[in-house]
């Protein structure tokens, strides 16, 4: 580790590793810091990732993480009614997320970034209203590292942005509380994702069964952070106890987590600082997917960082280019999806059952991507007590 870099990236998740790789490819001197002993582990993820997402990001599928093909999904309403969609071609994978994250960090290192695990950023160096570096704690030593730009890719904890004065606190109404098992269990349809909805099953969220092969599954739950005094673990254990064959599943991994499902931050930059990924609340608020979003934002941040440093201007005004381009590419869509989340959380189980009768699987997938919302609004309009929710969508 040197005393000074062009860019210091805090956190080696998909957001940080993509930022570091792209910035290094542009010839910048980059330091990527991760506080955990092992990049990628423990994972906090359902591990769903789409083929289109990989294409857009230019990430080449690698058999070390593309461990199971996904061709469609079953969405299960509270009364058990299934709305299914199976596509003509493969649409995604359930990935080995630990390997995925680790390979992204390896790619960053290969591009020339310095990567350091078990190195924790504990504070920022501020001067004249600019972020000028970080304080790092590494194996009992405390060091100061200068940076022209610091990238806050520190995930759901999101402290770096807050140290710099951007309020990225995860409000309870806008975070999901999640819990998850990886288990060995015989699966009926190993190429389909299963999602179970219901206010008693998973208030403001869902239970997922994402197959990692014929007999291994990622089984988890997300519930609204403020909706129940019972924990996510209690809800998931109750669901598993009632559902064969999962009640006989052999548990090989246990994880918990928080998923930002609010609107993206109103401002993604400050003087000498860019915020990326979960730290910036760049997540799909309906399904909670953030691997693609963090990676996409990271690549954009890496490009803008290179341009800013080339021009010798790391002011907020210059870095706003990242903010503007991100909003045009992803921000508007994510905001629409956030509004959909706010509408859907007003629905009772009876409303959800009604929707399941009116919708196709294609519709549900389209909604989750922020499309066909007009159709959803029309269906909600038919129920007087849902007119308010419908209007919020339009």
């Amino acid at each position, binding site marked *: 580790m040197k005393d000074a870099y062009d860019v210091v990236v805090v956190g080696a998740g998909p957001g940080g590793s993509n930022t570091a790789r792209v910035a290094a490819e542009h010839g910048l001197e980059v330091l990527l810091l991760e506080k955990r002993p092992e990049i990628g582990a423990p994972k906090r993820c359902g591990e769903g990732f789409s083929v289109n997402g990989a294409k857009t990001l230019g990430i080449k599928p690698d058999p070390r993480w593309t461990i199971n093909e996904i061709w469609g999904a079953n969405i299960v309403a509270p009364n058990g009614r299934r709305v299914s969609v199976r596509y003509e071609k493969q649409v995604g994978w359930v990935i080995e997320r630990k390997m995925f994250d680790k390979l992204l960090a390896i790619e960053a290192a290969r591009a020339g970034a310095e990567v350091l695990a078990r190195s924790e950023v504990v504070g920022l160096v501020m001067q004249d209203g600019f972020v000028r570096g970080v304080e790092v704690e590494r194996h009992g030593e405390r060091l100061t590292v200068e940076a022209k730009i610091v990238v806050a890719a520190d995930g759901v904890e999101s402290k770096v942005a807050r140290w710099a004065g951007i309020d990225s606190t995860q409000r309870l109404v806008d975070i999901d509380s999640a819990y998850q098992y990886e288990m060995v269990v015989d699966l009926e349809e190993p190429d389909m994702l299963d999602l179970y909805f219901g206010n008693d099953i998973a208030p403001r969220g869902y239970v997922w069964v994402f197959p990692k092969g014929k007999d291994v599954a990622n089984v988890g739950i997300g519930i609204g952070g403020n909706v129940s005094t019972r924990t996510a673990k209690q809800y998931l254990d109750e669901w598993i106890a009632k559902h064969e064959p999962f009640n006989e599943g052999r548990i090989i991994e246990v994880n918990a*987590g*928080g998923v930002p499902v609010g609107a993206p931050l109103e401002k993604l930059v400050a003087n000498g600082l860019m915020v990326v990924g979960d730290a910036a609340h760049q997540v799909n608020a309906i399904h909670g997917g953030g691997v693609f979003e963090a990676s996409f934002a990271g690549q954009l941040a890496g490009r803008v960082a290179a341009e800013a440093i080339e021009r010798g201007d790391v002011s907020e005004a210059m870095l706003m280019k990242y903010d503007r381009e991100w909003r045009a590419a992803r921000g508007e869509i994510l905001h629409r999806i956030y509004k959909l989340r706010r509408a859907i959380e007003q629905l009772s189980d009876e409303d959800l059952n009604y929707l399941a009768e009116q919708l196709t699987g294609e519709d549900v997938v389209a909604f989750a991507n922020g499309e066909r919302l007009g159709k959803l609004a029309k269906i909600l309009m038919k129920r007087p007590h849902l007119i308010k929710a419908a209007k919020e969508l339009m």
Partner: protein
Amino acid sequence: MPRKVDYDLCMSCGGCVGVCPFLALTLEHGIKLIVDEERCTDCGSCTRFCPVGAIREA
């Protein structure tokens, strides 16, 4: 009174760190959750969020 972590339950997920409005929590090395007793206002947000019920009133 500041909140207390039950280390037998805590999964080190970091969600509560993001939720705490007072920056009173730190997940050291991504492993050990520390409550800064000076900063904690006992607001209860972390307890409300925790997926496993690992943060208690003192």
